[in-house]
């Protein structure tokens, strides 16, 4: 993985960009490069992470303004080429607003900003983002969001279920998400969006390592 570089996108208001970079570089020895949102040159990165935070202050709707950045415009070709894109929390919101993933993330049912560790069932390993080949089908990851309630119409939900696009479901739904959805992939499997933060679960010293597998899978071809 010496030559493999993961681009970590920085929007005004991103606040998990350094955490993602720390987890990839420090825990997994994967090189990273920060990509300013105004850049549209993705030629020297092999995968991309849209990190958590509050891009553009969450104005209008979470992710709604970030969608129009030059970098997100350039993402279409990157995704079509089959390269991998991981959207975490605000990154997931940006991926839905920009149409790379279906549905939308809106205010938590109880209106609380929820910071907690949650148990998640791995539903599908499409794209190889999660390890459900051995007995470990439940993982624990931290969440930290005010607007993580996944919503979609019934046709979209049926499509998600039928095509095995639901990656993760909450064991105890904290935010009112439809069908307990915590993370989904696109049909090809190379784009994953999830509300939990794998980069905050990459070292026993900070409470767990269940996030390592997902970050490591960025280097899959």
């Amino acid at each position: 993985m010496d030559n493999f570089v993961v681009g970590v996108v920085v929007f005004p208001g991103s606040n998990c960009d350094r955490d993602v970079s720390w987890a990839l570089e420090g825990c997994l020895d994967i090189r990273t490069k920060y990509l300013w949102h105004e850049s549209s040159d993705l030629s020297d990165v092999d995968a991309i992470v849209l990190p958590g935070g509050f891009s553009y202050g969450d104005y209008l709707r979470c992710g709604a303004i970030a969608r129009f950045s030059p970098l997100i415009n350039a993402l279409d070709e990157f995704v079509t080429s089959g390269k991998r894109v991981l959207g975490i929390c605000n990154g997931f919101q940006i991926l839905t607003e920009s149409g790379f993933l279906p549905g939308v993330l809106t205010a938590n049912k109880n209106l609380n900003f929820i910071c907690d560790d949650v148990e998640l069932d791995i539903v599908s390993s499409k794209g190889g983002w999660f390890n459900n080949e051995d007995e470990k089908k439940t993982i624990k990851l931290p969440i930290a969001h005010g607007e993580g309630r996944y919503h979609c119409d019934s046709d979209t939900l049926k499509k998600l279920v039928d095509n095995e696009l639901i990656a993760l479901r909450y064991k105890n739904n904290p935010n009112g998400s439809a069908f307990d959805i915590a993370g989904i992939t696109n049909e090809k499997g190379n784009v994953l969006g999830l509300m939990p933060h794998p980069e905050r679960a990459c070292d026993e010293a900070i409470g767990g390592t269940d996030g390592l597998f997902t970050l490591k899978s960025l280097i899959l071809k």
Partner: protein
Amino acid sequence: MDQFAVKVFVRLRPSVLDPAGEATKSASIKLGAEGIKSLRIGKMIEVKIEGNGENEVREKIDLLCDRLFANTIIEDYEYSLEKL
């Protein structure tokens, strides 16, 4: 070029839960207001815009509403338009 003042209203679709509206309804009842059956919160966006006539301006506003102001998965929009 004509100038128009546009008021765009963005509302959560009736089928979508509005937790902020529910919380405000609860506070309204605590304030002592009686008879509130439903309370839902939306957004109002005011735009001043130039264009060659109302039709052209409507096209621009439709695009803005559909692509930016509202997420039509969960929100509906409508607008009023006044020539200045």
